[in-house]
Protein backbone atom coordinates (compact mmCIF):
# COMPACT_ATOMS: atom_id res chain seq x y z
CA UNK A 1 0.00 0.00 0.00
CA UNK A 2 1.82 3.06 -1.22
CA UNK A 3 1.31 6.51 0.15
CA UNK A 4 -1.06 9.06 -1.29
CA UNK A 5 1.87 11.39 -1.86
CA UNK A 6 3.75 8.78 -3.83
CA UNK A 7 0.67 7.91 -5.85
CA UNK A 8 0.04 11.50 -6.89
CA UNK A 9 3.67 12.07 -7.79
CA UNK A 10 3.77 8.91 -9.86
CA UNK A 11 0.59 10.15 -11.50
CA UNK A 12 2.51 13.27 -12.58
CA UNK A 13 0.28 15.64 -10.59
CA UNK A 14 1.75 18.98 -9.47
CA UNK A 15 1.67 18.12 -5.79
CA UNK A 16 1.31 20.35 -2.72
CA UNK A 17 2.62 19.40 0.72
CA UNK A 18 2.31 21.57 3.80
CA UNK A 19 3.83 21.59 7.27
CA UNK A 20 2.60 21.19 10.81
CA UNK A 21 4.59 21.79 13.96
CA UNK A 22 3.56 19.70 16.99
CA UNK A 23 2.74 21.62 20.20
CA UNK A 24 5.14 22.29 23.04
CA UNK A 25 3.19 20.03 25.31
CA UNK A 26 0.99 16.97 25.36
CA UNK A 27 -2.08 18.80 24.01
CA UNK A 28 -3.37 16.82 21.04
CA UNK A 29 -6.26 19.23 20.48
CA UNK A 30 -3.77 21.71 18.99
CA UNK A 31 -2.97 19.16 16.32
CA UNK A 32 -6.66 18.54 15.70
CA UNK A 33 -7.05 22.27 15.00
CA UNK A 34 -4.19 22.30 12.51
CA UNK A 35 -5.53 19.18 10.82
CA UNK A 36 -8.86 20.97 10.30
CA UNK A 37 -7.10 23.86 8.56
CA UNK A 38 -5.03 21.65 6.28
CA UNK A 39 -7.23 18.69 5.49
CA UNK A 40 -8.45 18.54 1.91
CA UNK A 41 -6.05 21.13 0.55
CA UNK A 42 -2.84 19.17 0.27
CA UNK A 43 -1.50 15.73 -0.62
CA UNK A 44 0.43 15.29 2.63
CA UNK A 45 1.61 17.27 5.64
CA UNK A 46 5.15 17.30 7.07
CA UNK A 47 5.30 16.85 10.82
CA UNK A 48 8.46 18.44 12.21
CA UNK A 49 10.84 16.72 14.64
CA UNK A 50 11.84 19.03 17.53
CA UNK A 51 12.48 21.72 14.97
CA UNK A 52 15.22 24.24 15.76
CA UNK A 53 16.03 21.90 18.67
CA UNK A 54 13.07 23.14 20.67
CA UNK A 55 11.41 20.34 22.61
CA UNK A 56 7.93 19.55 21.23
CA UNK A 57 5.62 16.58 21.11
CA UNK A 58 7.37 13.86 19.11
CA UNK A 59 7.01 13.71 15.37
CA UNK A 60 6.02 10.06 15.45
CA UNK A 61 3.19 10.69 17.91
CA UNK A 62 1.91 13.77 16.10
CA UNK A 63 2.11 11.89 12.78
CA UNK A 64 0.04 9.08 14.30
CA UNK A 65 -2.62 11.65 15.26
CA UNK A 66 -2.70 12.82 11.64
CA UNK A 67 -3.13 9.27 10.38
CA UNK A 68 -6.01 8.75 12.80
CA UNK A 69 -7.69 11.90 11.46
CA UNK A 70 -7.32 10.83 7.84
CA UNK A 71 -4.61 13.35 6.90
CA UNK A 72 -1.44 11.84 5.44
CA UNK A 73 1.77 12.82 7.29
CA UNK A 74 5.36 13.06 6.12
CA UNK A 75 7.12 12.20 9.36
CA UNK A 76 10.32 14.21 9.71
CA UNK A 77 13.17 12.49 11.46
CA UNK A 78 16.41 14.16 12.51
CA UNK A 79 19.61 12.32 13.45
CA UNK A 80 20.51 14.83 16.13
CA UNK A 81 18.69 13.18 19.02
CA UNK A 82 18.60 9.46 18.27
CA UNK A 83 21.16 6.73 17.67
CA UNK A 84 20.71 4.00 15.04
CA UNK A 85 19.02 1.72 17.55
CA UNK A 86 16.26 4.21 18.34
CA UNK A 87 16.02 5.30 14.69
CA UNK A 88 15.36 1.82 13.32
CA UNK A 89 12.98 1.15 16.18
CA UNK A 90 11.00 4.34 15.46
CA UNK A 91 10.83 3.63 11.73
CA UNK A 92 9.24 0.26 12.40
CA UNK A 93 6.91 1.76 14.97
CA UNK A 94 5.92 4.56 12.62
CA UNK A 95 5.08 2.16 9.82
CA UNK A 96 2.96 0.06 12.15
CA UNK A 97 0.99 3.22 13.01
CA UNK A 98 0.18 3.81 9.35
CA UNK A 99 2.89 6.37 8.59
CA UNK A 100 4.16 5.96 5.03
CA UNK A 101 6.35 8.95 4.24
CA UNK A 102 9.55 9.94 6.01
CA UNK A 103 11.80 12.97 5.54
CA UNK A 104 15.41 12.30 6.59
CA UNK A 105 17.23 15.28 8.06
CA UNK A 106 20.38 16.19 9.99
CA UNK A 107 18.55 18.53 12.37
CA UNK A 108 19.38 22.01 13.60
CA UNK A 109 22.19 22.08 16.15
CA UNK A 110 20.94 22.12 19.74
CA UNK A 111 22.92 25.25 20.50
CA UNK A 112 19.97 27.40 19.46
CA UNK A 113 17.19 25.35 20.90
CA UNK A 114 15.54 25.06 24.26
CA UNK A 115 18.18 22.65 25.59
CA UNK A 116 21.62 23.87 24.58
CA UNK A 117 23.07 21.88 27.49
CA UNK A 118 21.94 18.59 25.97
CA UNK A 119 24.38 16.10 24.54
CA UNK A 120 23.64 15.58 20.86
CA UNK A 121 23.84 12.20 19.14
CA UNK A 122 24.63 12.31 15.39
CA UNK A 123 25.44 8.60 15.51
CA UNK A 124 24.68 8.42 11.77
CA UNK A 125 24.16 11.25 9.30
CA UNK A 126 21.10 12.09 7.18
CA UNK A 127 22.49 10.30 4.12
CA UNK A 128 23.06 7.18 6.24
CA UNK A 129 19.46 7.50 7.39
CA UNK A 130 18.17 7.61 3.82
CA UNK A 131 20.14 4.49 2.98
CA UNK A 132 18.96 2.74 6.14
CA UNK A 133 15.28 3.35 5.36
CA UNK A 134 15.78 2.23 1.78
CA UNK A 135 17.60 -0.94 2.80
CA UNK A 136 14.87 -1.79 5.30
CA UNK A 137 12.33 -1.49 2.50
CA UNK A 138 14.30 -3.20 -0.25
CA UNK A 139 16.07 -5.98 1.65
CA UNK A 140 13.62 -6.45 4.49
CA UNK A 141 16.56 -6.38 6.92
CA UNK A 142 17.68 -3.94 9.58
CA UNK A 143 21.18 -2.45 9.79
CA UNK A 144 22.54 -5.50 11.54
CA UNK A 145 21.29 -7.76 8.74
CA UNK A 146 18.46 -9.25 10.76
CA UNK A 147 15.39 -10.16 8.69
CA UNK A 148 12.52 -8.07 9.94
CA UNK A 149 9.09 -9.31 10.86
CA UNK A 150 7.39 -7.16 8.21
CA UNK A 151 9.66 -4.62 6.63
CA UNK A 152 8.62 -0.96 6.72
CA UNK A 153 8.20 0.27 3.14
CA UNK A 154 8.50 4.02 3.45
CA UNK A 155 8.46 6.64 0.72
CA UNK A 156 11.75 8.39 1.42
CA UNK A 157 12.33 12.11 1.35
CA UNK A 158 15.39 14.26 1.86
CA UNK A 159 16.05 17.97 2.07
CA UNK A 160 18.08 20.06 -0.34
CA UNK A 161 19.24 23.60 0.05
CA UNK A 162 20.12 25.33 -3.23
CA UNK A 163 20.94 28.44 -1.15
CA UNK A 164 23.66 27.02 1.05
CA UNK A 165 27.32 26.99 0.16
CA UNK A 166 29.36 25.83 -1.58
CA UNK A 167 26.89 26.19 -4.46
CA UNK A 168 28.85 24.05 -6.89
CA UNK A 169 28.78 21.12 -4.51
CA UNK A 170 25.04 21.30 -3.76
CA UNK A 171 24.01 19.37 -6.88
CA UNK A 172 26.64 16.70 -6.17
CA UNK A 173 25.16 16.34 -2.71
CA UNK A 174 21.70 15.98 -4.24
CA UNK A 175 23.04 13.21 -6.45
CA UNK A 176 24.53 11.47 -3.43
CA UNK A 177 21.22 11.54 -1.57
CA UNK A 178 19.38 10.15 -4.59
CA UNK A 179 21.99 7.43 -4.88
CA UNK A 180 21.49 6.60 -1.22
CA UNK A 181 17.77 6.15 -1.82
CA UNK A 182 15.88 9.42 -1.73
CA UNK A 183 12.56 9.17 -3.60
CA UNK A 184 11.56 12.82 -3.21
CA UNK A 185 13.21 16.08 -2.22
CA UNK A 186 11.83 19.16 -0.47
CA UNK A 187 13.94 22.28 -0.82
CA UNK A 188 14.58 25.19 1.55
CA UNK A 189 12.14 28.02 0.86
CA UNK A 190 12.72 29.91 -2.34
CA UNK A 191 12.98 33.69 -2.52
CA UNK A 192 16.02 33.88 -4.79
CA UNK A 193 14.47 32.48 -7.95
CA UNK A 194 17.59 33.05 -10.07
CA UNK A 195 19.71 30.86 -7.84
CA UNK A 196 17.00 28.21 -7.68
CA UNK A 197 16.67 28.16 -11.47
CA UNK A 198 20.42 27.68 -11.80
CA UNK A 199 20.31 24.79 -9.34
CA UNK A 200 17.35 23.02 -10.95
CA UNK A 201 18.94 23.47 -14.37
CA UNK A 202 22.05 21.65 -13.18
CA UNK A 203 19.88 18.95 -11.63
CA UNK A 204 18.05 18.56 -14.93
CA UNK A 205 21.28 18.48 -16.93
CA UNK A 206 22.61 15.67 -14.77
CA UNK A 207 19.43 13.65 -15.19
CA UNK A 208 18.70 13.86 -11.47
CA UNK A 209 15.15 15.09 -11.95
CA UNK A 210 14.34 11.86 -13.77
CA UNK A 211 15.31 9.92 -10.68
CA UNK A 212 13.70 11.96 -7.94
CA UNK A 213 10.64 14.17 -7.39
CA UNK A 214 11.63 17.70 -6.37
CA UNK A 215 9.20 19.88 -4.45
CA UNK A 216 10.14 23.56 -4.29
CA UNK A 217 9.85 25.06 -0.83
CA UNK A 218 7.76 28.24 -0.44
CA UNK A 219 6.95 30.27 2.66
CA UNK A 220 4.63 33.29 2.61
CA UNK A 221 6.14 36.24 4.48
CA UNK A 222 3.85 37.85 7.03
CA UNK A 223 5.78 41.04 7.65
CA UNK A 224 8.93 42.94 6.77
CA UNK A 225 10.22 42.09 10.24
CA UNK A 226 9.81 38.38 9.56
CA UNK A 227 11.68 38.76 6.27
CA UNK A 228 14.56 40.58 7.92
CA UNK A 229 14.69 38.08 10.80
CA UNK A 230 14.81 35.12 8.45
CA UNK A 231 17.51 36.75 6.36
CA UNK A 232 19.71 37.46 9.35
CA UNK A 233 19.08 34.60 11.74
CA UNK A 234 17.97 31.50 9.90
CA UNK A 235 20.79 29.33 8.65
CA UNK A 236 20.78 28.56 4.95
CA UNK A 237 18.19 31.17 4.02
CA UNK A 238 18.61 33.46 0.99
CA UNK A 239 16.25 36.41 0.80
CA UNK A 240 17.27 39.00 -1.81
CA UNK A 241 17.10 42.65 -0.83
CA UNK A 242 14.45 43.34 -3.46
CA UNK A 243 12.08 40.95 -1.69
CA UNK A 244 12.72 42.68 1.65
CA UNK A 245 12.13 46.00 -0.10
CA UNK A 246 8.75 44.86 -1.43
CA UNK A 247 7.70 43.89 2.09
CA UNK A 248 8.97 47.18 3.54
CA UNK A 249 7.31 49.34 0.92
CA UNK A 250 3.74 48.35 1.73
CA UNK A 251 1.85 49.59 4.82
CA UNK A 252 2.14 47.23 7.80
CA UNK A 253 -1.47 46.09 7.61
CA UNK A 254 -1.02 45.15 3.95
CA UNK A 255 2.27 43.31 4.51
CA UNK A 256 0.76 39.83 4.84
CA UNK A 257 -1.13 40.32 1.61
CA UNK A 258 2.08 41.30 -0.17
CA UNK A 259 3.78 38.25 1.32
CA UNK A 260 1.06 36.01 -0.07
CA UNK A 261 1.35 37.77 -3.42
CA UNK A 262 5.11 37.13 -3.58
CA UNK A 263 4.43 33.52 -2.64
CA UNK A 264 1.87 33.12 -5.44
CA UNK A 265 4.30 34.62 -7.96
CA UNK A 266 6.96 32.13 -6.82
CA UNK A 267 4.53 29.23 -7.17
CA UNK A 268 3.57 30.37 -10.65
CA UNK A 269 7.20 30.35 -11.74
CA UNK A 270 7.76 26.94 -10.17
CA UNK A 271 4.81 25.49 -12.04
CA UNK A 272 6.53 26.34 -15.31
CA UNK A 273 9.96 24.93 -14.39
CA UNK A 274 11.11 21.60 -15.75
CA UNK A 275 12.11 19.24 -12.97
CA UNK A 276 9.79 20.70 -10.34
CA UNK A 277 7.18 18.14 -9.32
CA UNK A 278 5.28 20.30 -6.86
CA UNK A 279 5.62 22.66 -3.94
CA UNK A 280 6.24 22.28 -0.23
CA UNK A 281 4.29 25.09 1.42
CA UNK A 282 5.69 25.97 4.83
CA UNK A 283 3.29 28.45 6.38
CA UNK A 284 4.94 28.49 9.81
CA UNK A 285 2.29 28.99 12.52
CA UNK A 286 0.00 30.34 9.77
CA UNK A 287 -1.77 27.18 8.71
CA UNK A 288 -4.96 29.14 7.93
CA UNK A 289 -3.32 30.67 4.86
CA UNK A 290 -2.57 27.31 3.22
CA UNK A 291 -6.06 26.78 1.89
CA UNK A 292 -6.14 30.33 0.49
CA UNK A 293 -2.80 29.99 -1.28
CA UNK A 294 -3.63 26.57 -2.71
CA UNK A 295 -6.88 27.92 -4.09
CA UNK A 296 -5.45 31.17 -5.48
CA UNK A 297 -2.56 29.28 -7.09
CA UNK A 298 -5.03 27.06 -8.88
CA UNK A 299 -3.71 23.98 -7.13
CA UNK A 300 -6.86 22.71 -5.49
CA UNK A 301 -6.64 18.93 -4.94
CA UNK A 302 -6.38 16.77 -8.07
CA UNK A 303 -6.00 18.04 -11.56
CA UNK A 304 -2.97 20.11 -12.43
CA UNK A 305 -0.22 18.09 -14.09
CA UNK A 306 3.39 19.18 -13.85
CA UNK A 307 5.53 20.68 -16.59
CA UNK A 308 7.42 18.15 -18.66
CA UNK A 309 9.46 19.96 -21.26
Amino acid at each position, binding site marked *: MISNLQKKLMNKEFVVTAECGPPRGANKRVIAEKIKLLNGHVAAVNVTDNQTAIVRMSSIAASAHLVAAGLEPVMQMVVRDRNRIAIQSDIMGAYSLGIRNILCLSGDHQKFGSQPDARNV*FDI*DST*NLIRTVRDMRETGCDMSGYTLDEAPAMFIGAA*ANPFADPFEYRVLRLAKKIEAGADFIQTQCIYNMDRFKEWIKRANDQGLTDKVYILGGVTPLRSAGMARYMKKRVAGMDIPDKVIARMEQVPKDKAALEGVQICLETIEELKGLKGVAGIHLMAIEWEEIVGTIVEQAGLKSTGLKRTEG
Partner: protein
Amino acid sequence: MITGSQKPIQEIADLVAPYDRVLILGCGTCVKTCFAGGEDEVAVLASALRLYFKRTHKELAIDELTIERQCENEFIQEAAAKAGQNDAILSLACGAGVQALAKRFAKSPVLPGVNTTFIGIQASPGVFTEECSGCGNCGLAVFGGICPLTRCAKKLLNGPCGGSQQGKCEIDENTDCAWHLIIDRLTLLGQMDNLNVYIPPKNWATSLSGGPRKLIREDHII
Protein backbone atom coordinates in the same frame (compact mmCIF):
# COMPACT_ATOMS: atom_id res chain seq x y z
CA MET B 1 48.46 18.30 22.51
CA ILE B 2 45.81 18.32 25.17
CA THR B 3 44.30 21.74 25.74
CA GLY B 4 42.76 23.11 28.88
CA SER B 5 42.07 26.37 30.68
CA GLN B 6 42.64 27.23 34.28
CA LYS B 7 39.45 27.22 36.35
CA PRO B 8 38.15 30.60 37.54
CA ILE B 9 40.16 31.63 40.55
CA GLN B 10 37.14 31.83 42.84
CA GLU B 11 36.33 28.20 42.06
CA ILE B 12 39.94 27.21 42.80
CA ALA B 13 39.95 29.21 46.03
CA ASP B 14 36.79 27.39 47.14
CA LEU B 15 38.38 24.02 46.32
CA VAL B 16 41.52 24.64 48.40
CA ALA B 17 39.93 26.59 51.25
CA PRO B 18 39.22 23.52 53.45
CA TYR B 19 42.97 22.83 53.70
CA ASP B 20 45.86 24.41 55.58
CA ARG B 21 48.75 23.41 53.34
CA VAL B 22 48.29 23.03 49.61
CA LEU B 23 50.77 22.04 46.92
CA ILE B 24 50.15 23.57 43.50
CA LEU B 25 51.62 21.06 41.08
CA GLY B 26 52.21 22.13 37.50
CA CYS B 27 52.95 20.12 34.39
CA GLY B 28 55.59 21.00 31.82
CA THR B 29 54.04 19.48 28.75
CA CYS B 30 50.58 20.12 27.22
CA VAL B 31 49.20 22.56 29.79
CA LYS B 32 52.41 24.55 29.73
CA THR B 33 52.00 24.97 25.96
CA CYS B 34 48.46 26.28 26.28
CA PHE B 35 49.35 28.53 29.22
CA ALA B 36 47.12 26.78 31.73
CA GLY B 37 49.44 24.94 34.09
CA GLY B 38 53.14 25.27 33.45
CA GLU B 39 55.73 26.67 35.83
CA ASP B 40 54.82 30.29 35.08
CA GLU B 41 51.13 29.65 35.59
CA VAL B 42 51.82 27.86 38.88
CA ALA B 43 53.75 30.89 40.13
CA VAL B 44 51.05 33.34 39.10
CA LEU B 45 48.25 31.24 40.61
CA ALA B 46 50.18 30.78 43.87
CA SER B 47 50.76 34.51 44.14
CA ALA B 48 47.14 35.33 43.35
CA LEU B 49 45.86 32.80 45.90
CA ARG B 50 48.20 34.13 48.59
CA LEU B 51 46.85 37.61 48.03
CA TYR B 52 43.28 36.28 48.08
CA PHE B 53 43.68 34.36 51.32
CA LYS B 54 45.55 37.22 52.99
CA ARG B 55 42.71 39.54 52.05
CA THR B 56 40.13 37.09 53.41
CA HIS B 57 42.13 36.44 56.60
CA LYS B 58 42.66 32.73 56.03
CA GLU B 59 45.88 30.99 56.94
CA LEU B 60 46.80 28.83 53.98
CA ALA B 61 50.34 27.79 53.14
CA ILE B 62 50.90 27.41 49.42
CA ASP B 63 53.73 25.28 48.05
CA GLU B 64 54.76 25.16 44.37
CA LEU B 65 56.33 22.56 42.13
CA THR B 66 56.27 21.75 38.43
CA ILE B 67 57.23 18.37 36.99
CA GLU B 68 57.78 17.43 33.37
CA ARG B 69 54.57 15.40 33.01
CA GLN B 70 51.89 14.22 35.37
CA CYS B 71 50.94 11.19 33.30
CA GLU B 72 53.99 9.07 34.01
CA ASN B 73 55.22 7.65 37.35
CA GLU B 74 58.82 8.40 36.44
CA PHE B 75 58.03 12.11 36.86
CA ILE B 76 55.21 11.86 39.40
CA GLN B 77 57.53 10.32 41.98
CA GLU B 78 59.59 13.55 41.99
CA ALA B 79 56.61 15.17 43.70
CA ALA B 80 56.35 12.52 46.41
CA ALA B 81 58.16 14.49 49.11
CA LYS B 82 56.09 17.63 48.68
CA ALA B 83 52.92 15.59 48.34
CA GLY B 84 53.61 14.18 51.77
CA GLN B 85 54.26 17.63 53.26
CA ASN B 86 50.95 19.08 52.16
CA ASP B 87 47.29 18.38 53.00
CA ALA B 88 46.12 18.48 49.41
CA ILE B 89 47.45 18.77 45.87
CA LEU B 90 46.01 21.23 43.42
CA SER B 91 47.00 19.81 40.07
CA LEU B 92 47.17 22.06 37.03
CA ALA B 93 47.60 19.12 34.67
CA CYS B 94 44.96 17.71 32.36
CA GLY B 95 42.35 15.31 33.73
CA ALA B 96 44.63 12.36 33.03
CA GLY B 97 47.38 13.88 35.15
CA VAL B 98 45.02 14.64 38.01
CA GLN B 99 43.89 11.02 38.03
CA ALA B 100 47.43 9.67 37.77
CA LEU B 101 48.37 11.70 40.84
CA ALA B 102 45.33 10.40 42.68
CA LYS B 103 46.37 6.83 41.88
CA ARG B 104 49.95 7.42 43.06
CA PHE B 105 49.21 9.59 46.10
CA ALA B 106 46.11 7.77 47.25
CA LYS B 107 46.11 9.43 50.67
CA SER B 108 46.25 12.97 49.33
CA PRO B 109 43.16 14.72 48.08
CA VAL B 110 43.96 15.73 44.50
CA LEU B 111 42.02 18.72 43.20
CA PRO B 112 41.73 19.79 39.56
CA GLY B 113 42.77 23.37 38.84
CA VAL B 114 42.31 23.10 35.09
CA ASN B 115 39.28 22.32 32.91
CA THR B 116 40.58 19.91 30.31
CA THR B 117 38.98 20.50 26.95
CA PHE B 118 40.32 19.01 23.75
CA ILE B 119 43.00 17.36 21.62
CA GLY B 120 44.21 20.11 19.36
CA ILE B 121 46.93 22.31 17.97
CA GLN B 122 48.29 25.79 18.43
CA ALA B 123 46.97 27.23 15.18
CA SER B 124 48.77 30.56 15.74
CA PRO B 125 50.40 32.11 18.83
CA GLY B 126 47.80 32.11 21.59
CA VAL B 127 45.09 30.40 19.51
CA PHE B 128 44.27 26.73 19.98
CA THR B 129 41.76 24.68 17.98
CA GLU B 130 40.17 21.29 18.47
CA GLU B 131 41.18 18.81 15.79
CA CYS B 132 40.78 15.22 16.95
CA SER B 133 38.20 13.40 19.02
CA GLY B 134 40.00 10.09 19.34
CA CYS B 135 37.54 7.93 17.45
CA GLY B 136 40.02 5.05 17.30
CA ASN B 137 39.78 4.50 13.55
CA CYS B 138 41.28 7.34 11.61
CA GLY B 139 39.85 8.17 8.17
CA LEU B 140 41.70 11.42 7.55
CA ALA B 141 43.10 10.12 4.25
CA VAL B 142 39.64 10.24 2.68
CA PHE B 143 38.85 13.74 3.92
CA GLY B 144 41.98 15.54 2.83
CA GLY B 145 43.36 15.74 6.36
CA ILE B 146 40.36 17.47 7.92
CA CYS B 147 38.32 15.51 10.44
CA PRO B 148 34.56 15.76 9.92
CA LEU B 149 33.82 13.93 13.18
CA THR B 150 35.61 16.59 15.18
CA ARG B 151 35.34 19.74 13.14
CA CYS B 152 31.81 19.29 11.81
CA ALA B 153 29.35 20.17 14.58
CA LYS B 154 27.05 17.39 13.38
CA LYS B 155 29.74 14.75 12.75
CA LEU B 156 28.51 14.35 9.18
CA LEU B 157 30.36 11.84 7.03
CA ASN B 158 28.44 12.79 3.87
CA GLY B 159 28.31 16.52 4.44
CA PRO B 160 27.81 19.46 4.28
CA CYS B 161 24.42 20.18 5.81
CA GLY B 162 22.07 22.90 4.66
CA GLY B 163 23.31 25.34 7.27
CA SER B 164 26.72 25.90 5.71
CA GLN B 165 26.98 29.47 4.49
CA GLN B 166 29.98 31.37 3.13
CA GLY B 167 32.29 28.77 4.53
CA LYS B 168 30.96 29.09 8.07
CA CYS B 169 29.13 26.68 10.32
CA GLU B 170 25.57 27.48 11.36
CA ILE B 171 26.49 27.29 15.04
CA ASP B 172 28.97 30.15 15.04
CA GLU B 173 30.05 32.68 12.43
CA ASN B 174 33.63 32.26 13.67
CA THR B 175 33.63 28.52 13.13
CA ASP B 176 34.64 27.26 9.71
CA CYS B 177 32.36 24.74 8.05
CA ALA B 178 34.58 21.66 8.08
CA TRP B 179 32.91 20.35 4.95
CA HIS B 180 33.62 23.54 3.08
CA LEU B 181 37.27 23.10 4.06
CA ILE B 182 37.23 19.43 3.05
CA ILE B 183 35.76 20.26 -0.36
CA ASP B 184 38.34 23.01 -0.93
CA ARG B 185 41.18 20.77 0.11
CA LEU B 186 40.10 17.76 -1.94
CA THR B 187 39.60 20.06 -4.91
CA LEU B 188 43.16 21.29 -4.48
CA LEU B 189 44.42 17.72 -4.25
CA GLY B 190 42.31 16.60 -7.22
CA GLN B 191 40.62 14.04 -4.99
CA MET B 192 36.97 15.13 -5.13
CA ASP B 193 36.06 11.59 -6.19
CA ASN B 194 36.47 10.65 -2.53
CA LEU B 195 33.16 12.42 -1.91
CA ASN B 196 31.24 10.68 -4.67
CA VAL B 197 31.42 7.50 -2.65
CA TYR B 198 28.72 6.85 -0.05
CA ILE B 199 30.33 6.74 3.36
CA PRO B 200 28.53 4.28 5.64
CA PRO B 201 27.73 4.84 9.33
CA LYS B 202 30.75 5.11 11.61
CA ASN B 203 31.63 2.18 13.82
CA TRP B 204 31.80 3.91 17.17
CA ALA B 205 32.86 0.79 19.07
CA THR B 206 36.51 1.88 18.87
CA SER B 207 35.71 5.26 20.43
CA LEU B 208 34.92 6.14 24.05
CA SER B 209 31.36 5.13 23.26
CA GLY B 210 32.54 1.51 23.37
CA GLY B 211 33.84 1.96 26.92
CA PRO B 212 37.06 3.43 28.39
CA ARG B 213 39.98 2.19 26.31
CA LYS B 214 43.26 0.57 27.16
CA LEU B 215 46.40 0.16 25.13
CA ILE B 216 48.70 -2.76 25.97
CA ARG B 217 52.05 -3.15 24.27
CA GLU B 218 53.45 -6.52 25.22
CA ASP B 219 56.69 -5.74 23.44
CA HIS B 220 57.33 -3.01 25.97
CA ILE B 221 56.31 -4.86 29.12
CA ILE B 222 58.99 -6.59 31.20
